[in-house]
């Protein structure tokens, strides 16, 4: 409650609420370069133990450089998380005053600021869209087998997207691992690995969602490579494809 009062005071005295009439959320009142510098100091001492100096996450913590937050998106929502913590996780409440909290948030937001425009997009988006269709990208990326690329430019850089096209094996995220297994009855199972525990594996194949007990398997392997073929496109064509993906659409 102490912070609610502070927010109200600050809002009333200096700032006002966000412009949209329908919105009751408050935007960060301490977002100057000096605030961000102060926030950087606080981030290092209070946050970086778990979130990493680079903001890329430490142990199951989110990657701030994506600009995508899991439990809130507004400044006010993120302010509340820093001050109250997240129940059921190791994210505690912090003893920061309102200004320190806002400054820290300003710095956290700066990890992802200007992300999409960091590198000039060289290619032609329309030609990229045509390539996306003609090269058959949609076959996997739209049907759910491979990562959803809609809006990918918001949380991946030009360099990262380019690398994924040129060298698909470079960094396969665990959520796109696949399985290859043989049942004791002799059947072969393959698909996208969705979940696993000591006793069972959940996966998806062309016919749907499947769950199999490990005790029913004679072999089980996690396939950590990507099924995506190395590209035969020219550099210029890759630029076009990147331009298409950066500008939003994969559908």
């Amino acid at each position, binding site marked *: *409650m*102490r*912070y609610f009062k502070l927010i109200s005071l600050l809002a009333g005295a200096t700032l006002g609420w966000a412009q949209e009439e329908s919105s009751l959320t408050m935007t960060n009142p301490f977002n100057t370069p000096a605030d961000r510098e102060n926030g950087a100091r606080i981030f*290092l*001492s*209070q946050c*970086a*133990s*778990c*979130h*990493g*100096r680079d903001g890329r*996450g*430490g*142990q*199951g*913590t989110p990657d701030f450089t994506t600009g995508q937050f899991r439990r809130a998106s507004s400044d006010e929502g993120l302010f509340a998380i820093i*001050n109250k*913590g997240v*129940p*059921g*996780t*190791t994210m*505690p*409440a*912090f*003893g920061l005053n309102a200004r320190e909290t806002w400054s820290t948030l300003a710095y956290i937001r700066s990890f992802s600021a200007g992300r999409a425009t960091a590198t000039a997009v060289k290619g032609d988006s329309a030609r990229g869209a045509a390539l996306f269709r003609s090269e058959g990208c949609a076959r996997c990326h739209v049907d759910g087998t491979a990562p959803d690329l809609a809006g990918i430019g918001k949380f991946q850089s030009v360099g990262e997207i380019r690398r994924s096209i040129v060298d698909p094996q470079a960094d396969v*995220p*665990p*959520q796109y*691992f696949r399985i290859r297994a043989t049942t004791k009855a002799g059947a072969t199972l393959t698909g996208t690995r969705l*979940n*696993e*525990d*000591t*006793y069972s594996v959940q996966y998806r194949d062309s016919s749907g969602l499947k769950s199999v007990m490990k005790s029913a398997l004679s072999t089980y392997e*996690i396939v*950590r490579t990507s099924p995506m073929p190395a590209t035969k496109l020219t550099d210029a064509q890759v630029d076009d494809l990147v331009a298409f993906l950066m500008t939003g659409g994969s559908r």
Partner: protein
Amino acid sequence: MIRIYLLVAAGLLAQKPGEWTMYHGSHQSTHYSELNQITPANVKGLELGWVFQARSLEKFEATPLVIDGVMYITEAPNNVVALDPATGRPFWIYEHKLPDVTFPCCGKINRGVAYHDGTIFHGTHDAKMIALDARTGRKKWETTLADHQEGYVFTHAPMVVKDKVLIGSAGGELGIRGFLAALDIKTGRELWRFQTIPGPGEKGNETWAGDSWKHGGGPIWLTGSYDPELNLTYWGTGNPGPDWNPTVRAGDNLYSDSVIAIDPDTGKLKWHFQFTPHDQWDFDAVQTAVLVDREWQGRQRKLMYWANRNGFFYVFDRATGEFLRGTAFVKLDWASGLDDKGRPILNPGRGPSKQGTKTYPGVQGGTNWYAPSYSPRTGLFYLTAWENYHSTYFTWNQDYEKGKWYAGGGVKAPVPPTRREPMMKRGTEDGYAAVRALDPVTGKKVWDFPMSDMSESGLLTTATDILFSGNREGHFFALDAKTGKLLWNKYLGGQVIASPITYLVDGRQHVAIAVGSALFTFRLPEP
């Protein structure tokens, strides 16, 4: 049965069989029960008794007590609930009002209460001990022991020894100076206090460079053990602060990462052993001191078994503190072994660095605070092990500020320290948990029950050679304590971060475990 009567005669078993009267089940902290109705032959027939759903999404780390037909449990962070252990229906709920901001490091959790003669004792996040009337749930007294705004916070279940109730403070990541305090159970008056970090003029203060002792940490956040014959209590202390910037606290940093043997009458230190001198990895020695009387090299001795977060399993003479043996129980590379006195032989270059140092075990350790178990029937020591698990440790400079995080570095690891979601995306290549049985004589592994994900579940063994445990995946299960073979498993869909207990209601054996944000009980069908 003869064994039970002997123990009672010796004053070692402070409870009736069928009750669970203190956090660790007994002062020896073996997490072993003489109950024998649930057997390897009938365990498959266990059915759900009841579920207590906490009104809290915090991690449910509490272990209940069952005394005289009533169960006492905490609902995070600081509510105390008395309920009917047969139906799960609450008799009363005490709600402790906390200040808006308190500073538990890693979640607003609590691990339970203590009981003595009609009174419940509970430590709170605002560094208070409260005493409640067990019959009414009304407060008898309350004593504030430290300033919660400096990061002092009570998370463990207190321990009653004779006419005193003992509690220590967490806060090792906030630059506290740890302590253990004893209060009069009748009045709440503080009778003595042992500072885990010695001040100027006190022995051990010379193990801290300059003023670094002032914020040296050494928290206590797990209930200790007690030997009435020796009149000694045993407590594990946590990390020195700041965790990952050891350069500002040159020296061994006593009594961080130690077991301290404290006289409960006076609060005086009888002996100590430091597991990880000048810790650089956050290897709190906050594990269960397991007290066992057994032959050691041809002579009957009062032993203490200790599986430490640093990855070594230790055996001590608990009368003198003599180190008898230490053996690695998981993959580790920060030390190459222990010398004759038990001091680790450090490998060079394993401490935290600016660019990060990958070291085994990772920051959550080879094991942690959740209970191990010792069965006098099998003679085996059981623990939850984090195998093949590493972290990358970073260091940086930071100044102390009151009530702020004071860790001087950080950690990255592919395995998260805790996890709510029932999803496991990674493989086991970055570590997995196992229920591990050690021969405490040799320190060697006897059997292993490996799991896919990590586990923060404690263990319980029984007189029928069943071992109960759970895991982060959401399972609660029973193993054969002799072989490690799976006897029974139930998926409950939430992480287990607590230790199971067993008790009798109306002569019928129950098993209880906290999973997700609820407490589950299981029992055999009515005959």
